[in-house]
């Protein structure tokens, strides 16, 4: 095998092997565990960096193992894969640091970090999967690896949340499997190809293709939390904060959204999908999700639940960008994969900090939080403005491109959705910011703890600051080469037939 084939495997192993080793570690071996965790995360980041450079030079990294007769398991790192890979490996490093700080002294950390690593392994597998079968394999692995994290606390509420999570994801996985096998019996291949691989099929198969599309999108929509498949996501908030970050920004919902990107562009081909007439319903569904999520978020007092519904809404921007079926909207959708990740993880880190340091879980308890924890709340503010879509934070870029794309495709109603959504975003974030910065802090916080010399421990403080800065930079420097936006453009060019 050539070096190009080894690197994708090494990327997988850089989290898989530490994960497996951590399972075997005794609870007290904190230092070794931390070393394994951070070593794996850094190695992965370095490897992904190498691939990033290589892919920009036109190298494709690929490895295949024969699996079923006529079907291989294949990993390939192309431009689209890299988009997700860079995001997940970067955020994994940050989340690992945060999790080490967050879980300090709590029980069952070996189990936690073991599954944490498996989770990321599955995510990078999802990113690099070169065909639907490999994709499904890692997609299901992701389900399995996140389950123990969701029920980690071992309470009755956690167990219930886990059951709901599984019911949705396994059901979705089953639908996907059904669709994939059906597709395979029609095409004899499952390999992701730019412009898709089904357009040559006989027109008599088109009704079947529409059904397959529905099955696949439903299966993926569960993880991407499309309404009405989003129910599990707010329930899963019982998990520890790093897990929320993982679910919402690094791995799970992203895997769903990324899968939808793959299916629309590289299975069906976006123009062929539009021809089948399946993109418009998808765009409508995404719009409904965007509005519904925002509306629900408005009425949540629990901070994490409010953020969770915000995720429901925000992830659908990606789907919307895909479904508008215009090159410009595609850029907006793809770039939001990164942007939403950076902004949402910032918000969850901050929410975790408030909960850990002050015992604040509710929006109504946040009065004056900015005075007690200024850095945390600065990061939170950046994330919140990004979500609203205020320039110059990254979120603005997304909405700008989505809007342009909608105009380009002649779907003016999307503008209305975007505007309404932005208003709603503002409506549920601005009161928080107002309360945190301009209201008087209470005489006593619900459960204040002293963690380190600053406002909280360093392992908890630095991750949100880093990601907030990244979200800011992604917006400010969007026109530089290798910015998320430029990379998304690079991909979008491949996914549309040259005119």
């Amino acid at each position, binding site marked *: 095998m050539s070096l190009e084939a080894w690197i994708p495997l090494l990327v997988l192993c850089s989290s898989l092997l530490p994960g497996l080793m951590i*399972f075997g570690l005794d609870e007290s071996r904190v230092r070794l565990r931390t070393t394994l965790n951070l070593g794996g995360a850094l190695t992965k980041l370095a490897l992904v960096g190498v691939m990033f450079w290589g892919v920009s030079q036109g190298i494709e990294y690929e490895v295949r193992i*024969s*699996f*079923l*007769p006529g079907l291989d398991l294949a990993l390939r790192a192309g431009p689209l894969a890299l988009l997700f890979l860079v995001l997940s490996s970067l955020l994994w490093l940050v989340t690992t640091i945060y999790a080490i700080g967050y879980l300090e002294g709590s*029980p*069952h950390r070996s*189990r936690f970090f073991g599954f944490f690593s498996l989770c990321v392994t599955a995510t990078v597998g999802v990113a690099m999967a070169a065909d639907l*079968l490999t994709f*499904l*394999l890692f997609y*299901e*692995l992701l*389900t*399995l690896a996140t*389950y*123990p994290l969701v*029920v*980690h606390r*071992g*309470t*009755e509420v*956690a*167990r219930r949340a*886990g*059951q709901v999570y*599984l*019911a949705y994801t*396994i*059901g979705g*996985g*089953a*639908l996907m*499997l*059904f669709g994939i*096998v*059906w597709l*395979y*019996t029609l095409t004899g291949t499952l390999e992701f190809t730019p412009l898709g691989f089904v357009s040559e099929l006989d027109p008599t198969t088109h009704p079947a293709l529409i059904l397959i599309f529905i099955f696949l999108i439903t299966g993926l929509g569960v993880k991407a939390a499309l309404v009405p498949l989003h129910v599990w996501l707010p329930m899963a908030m019982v998990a520890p904060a790093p897990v929320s970050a993982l679910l919402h920004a690094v791995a799970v919902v992203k895997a769903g959204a990324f899968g939808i990107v793959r299916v629309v562009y590289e299975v069906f081909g976006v123009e062929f999908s539009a021809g089948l007439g399946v993109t418009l319903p998808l765009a409508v569904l995404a719009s409904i999700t965007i509005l519904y999520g925002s509306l629900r978020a408005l009425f949540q007092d629990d901070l994490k639940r409010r953020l969770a519904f915000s995720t429901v809404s925000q992830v659908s921007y990606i789907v919307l960008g895909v479904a508008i079926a215009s090159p410009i909207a595609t850029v907006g959708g793809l770039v939001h994969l990164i942007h939403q990740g950076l902004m949402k993880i910032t918000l969850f880190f901050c929410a975790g900090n408030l909960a850990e340091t002050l015992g604040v879980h509710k929006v109504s308890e946040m009065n004056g939080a900015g005075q007690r924890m200024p850095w945390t709340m600065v990061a939170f503010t950046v994330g919140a403005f990004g979500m609203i879509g205020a320039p110059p934070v990254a979120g603005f870029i997304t909405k700008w491109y989505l809007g342009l794309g909608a105009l380009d495709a002649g779907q003016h109603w999307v503008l209305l959705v975007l505007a309404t959504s932005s208003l709603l975003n503002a409506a549920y974030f601005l009161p928080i910011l107002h309360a945190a910065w301009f209201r008087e802090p209470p005489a006593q916080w619900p459960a204040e703890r002293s963690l380190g010399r600053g406002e909280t421990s360093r392992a908890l403080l630095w991750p949100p600051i880093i990601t907030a800065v990244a979200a800011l930079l992604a917006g400010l420097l969007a026109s530089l080469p290798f910015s998320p936006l430029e990379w998304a453009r690079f991909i979008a060019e491949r996914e549309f037939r040259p005119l």
Partner: protein
Amino acid sequence: MEPSALVRELFAWAHADAAGLMASVLALPVLVPLLGALFAFVMRRWAAAIGLVTLLALLATVLLLIPWLLGAGAQGLAVGGWGAPLGVDLYADGLSLAMLLMTAVVGLGISLYAHSYFRADPIREQAFWPLWLLLLTALNALFLSRDLFNLYVTLEILGLSAVALTALAGGAKALVGAMRYLLVSLLGSLAYLLGIALLYHAYATVDLALLAARIDAAPATWAALALMSAGLILKTALFPLHFWLPPAHASAAAPVSAALSALVIKGSYYLLVRIWLELVQVQSDGVATFLGLLGAGAVLWGSIQALVQTRLKLLIAYSTVAQIGYLFLAFPLAAGTGGLAWSGALYLALSHALAKAAMFLAAGNLLRFGGHDRIADLDRVVQRLPLSMAAFALAGVSIIGLPPSGGFIGKWLLLEAALSTGRWGWGIVIMLGGVLAATYVFKVVGFAFTQAEHPHQAQRVPATMEWVAFALAVAAVLLGFLVAQPLMLLEIGDPFAAHVGGMGP
């Protein structure tokens, strides 16, 4: 005999080439465990050691058969030198070989487990080994035989040893379960035997190959097939004749439960498949659809029953009822897809053997650890007995059919067979069964995280018992990665090809 003749004979002996010896190797998978059983029976104190050595020898024997058959194709042995119809023929193709290998591997795992499990109870231990080795003898003899009457005898050894092993646990539940199992098993055998009587008197042979050549669509044929199939279905516990399975499988000792669910029911299923493949070219006719419908019923009913169980071992036993259903979906799906559907079903059978053995062994560990198997009171076993819980969950992955696992491959192949011929209904059953399986598996896993209301005193579980369960579960998952090799093995002798004989249109 004259002395000179004797000398000549002895001389000939010395110079004979070893063709007879070579061919007789095919009988070794029967002889090795049989001799082991006899020795274990006589030398009771050494029973466990003899048993383990026997299992190693058996595994070695089967591994030896693999390259031979891969090179030389399917092999036959006319025991006694007569050949059909007078004598009894043995025959090994890919299908038999896969089942032999499954038995040897799972058997070794169960044996290692049993070695630890019975250590504190020498009386049970001494009773266990001869019965267990005879059970393996019966299975191997069943997988190798081509003679329907000989198969009847092997079925009886299988049934009686399984019953005796079930009763070994003692206690009212196990004894009642064993009693019901015995009656059902005997009834099944007699129905099968009556079928053979009809076949013999219609075609003057009980050899499968000869019958395949002679058989026609006479009333006797259909009556015989109906009787034999009914008997075997009863023994396989296909819905709605599964009533006897859960109490027997759930009340037996852990290694026995594992053997019953993983191996014993596969014996009668294998025989049913053989009879259908050889004697009836399965076309999409009413009978195949009927069997498929029973299978679908088993998948749904068994899964739902598993879901509502409050005891872990009963849950696992009902899961077996459901998984048996999958094996029968191949009957209707084989039409038009031939090898695809059968490979899928057999792949499921193999991975179910590994996974279900792992599950029952893990359940045995939990039972010993907590002294009970109430699912809602598992009490944080996920951190107190992580290896066993991991075994259960990994085995569950294969049972559900999530990738990558043996169960996934089996379901993929079945699903492909269903969808490529546009038979959506069967496909939906396959998917639904998977979702239900996920629900009952993760019901258990979920309670393993939570605290029980009444914490209990935990017993120590020997490391061997934990590792064996884990290893079997890992094997079930690995079976999902090494797909080409098992499929290649199944191809030897082309067991799923449409035969020249048979009654197909």
